[in-house]
């Protein structure tokens, strides 16, 4: 969807504020929401794209929320959608004010052993070889479109013409099952932002369906 998350090129957000010696997590609940999201997905308790639920937040809520608040919204929304938890039981439990979650007596050593395999071990390259319409060197134009569902085609590219530089592979597009060719496309900054743009180039990977 063309939502507030699609921020490329917007004005008005001010300077980039970097934090020296930033910790991995700022609060324990941030680490729990990340861990819970990955484990809930692995256990089949939630389905579908976490990002689609984040993108469906009202823009004012999205902008006011921190990154992990958005993750918390997405986790809760998907747990409710799957029927795993109800909003009422979360509301009721949250009202108790507890900040230390219940510890399970049970353990899952087999799953614990899978964590480093999933997060921290060499992988086979994803994607399948692409057989698509375009080859490196082709001129392509990003389609004008306004899909209401989750997609990966930023607005700032629509209608702009660039050049295919590589075909890294094929992956299912958002919401699809079958792999589709993905192209690395190079754009000139002047074509994206006009004559007063900073000189330079922009590269982005785009599914074939976004291009013509």
């Amino acid at each position, binding site marked *: 969807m063309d939502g507030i998350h699609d921020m490329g090129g917007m004005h008005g957000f001010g300077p980039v504020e970097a934090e020296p010696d930033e910790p991995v997590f700022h609060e324990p609940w941030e680490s729990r929401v990340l861990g819970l999201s990955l484990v809930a997905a692995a256990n089949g308790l939630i389905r579908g794209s976490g990002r689609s639920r984040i993108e469906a937040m009202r823009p004012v809520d999205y902008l006011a929320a921190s990154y992990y608040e958005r993750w918390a919204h997405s986790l809760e929304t998907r747990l409710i959608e799957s029927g795993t938890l109800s909003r009422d039981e979360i509301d009721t439990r949250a009202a108790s004010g507890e900040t230390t979650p219940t510890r399970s007596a049970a353990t899952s050593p087999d799953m614990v052993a899978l*964590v480093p395999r999933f997060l921290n071990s060499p992988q086979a390259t994803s994607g399948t070889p692409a057989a698509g319409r375009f080859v490196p060197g082709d001129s392509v134009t990003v389609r004008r479109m306004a899909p209401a569902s989750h997609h990966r085609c930023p607005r700032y590219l629509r209608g702009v013409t660039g050049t295919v530089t590589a075909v890294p592979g094929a992956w299912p597009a958002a919401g699809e099952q079958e792999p589709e060719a993905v192209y690395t496309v190079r754009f000139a900054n002047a074509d994206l*932002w006009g004559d007063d743009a900073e000189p330079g180039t922009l590269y982005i990977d*785009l599914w074939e369906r976004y291009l013509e």
Partner: protein
Amino acid sequence: MSSEHGHHPVEPSAVEHRVTAIESLLVEKGLITSDVVDAVIETFERDLGPLNGAKVVARAWVDDAYRARLLVDGTAAIGELGFGGAEGEHLTVLENTPTLHNLVVCTLCSCYPWPVLGLPPRWYKDAAYRARAVREPRAVLAEFGTTLPDGVEVAVWDSSAEIRYMVLPVRPDGTEGLSEDELVPLVTRDHMIGTAR
């Protein structure tokens, strides 16, 4: 806390209560166990971070054959050093040169190569960087204290699909005598995102 549209703004103080409630309920229903959540967090805090990427860069600086493999198939060459995993199933390494500087952003969200850099810093996920890196990269770089000489082209990479990017910086002048291990501490997270040169 509810609306017909499924949106419910969460106060900063309330989100901790809601996340805690969710974990307690899932544990009490027997749907998850705490140790697995702990293991995920420990892996991020202990094993994933820019030190991994720095080892890749240092190897590429001392071993031309490795650098060549790295630039052709980042996933496989990074795997040679034992690194890989979620958000790194297809890794591409972007080589800086004396006339080219690469900068990585995810304008739509937070795509980032977890196996080599860990979780992204807050600024990488914030609106200002996502909005501006594609339109005024030199102005953003200047805010990081990075001023590029004239004649250096900036290439911005907007991570949007399944490929995750890291930058291979130029080996600094004056480091010819350093070993691979001595080079590792010279490489920072920001070098590998591209906000540092």
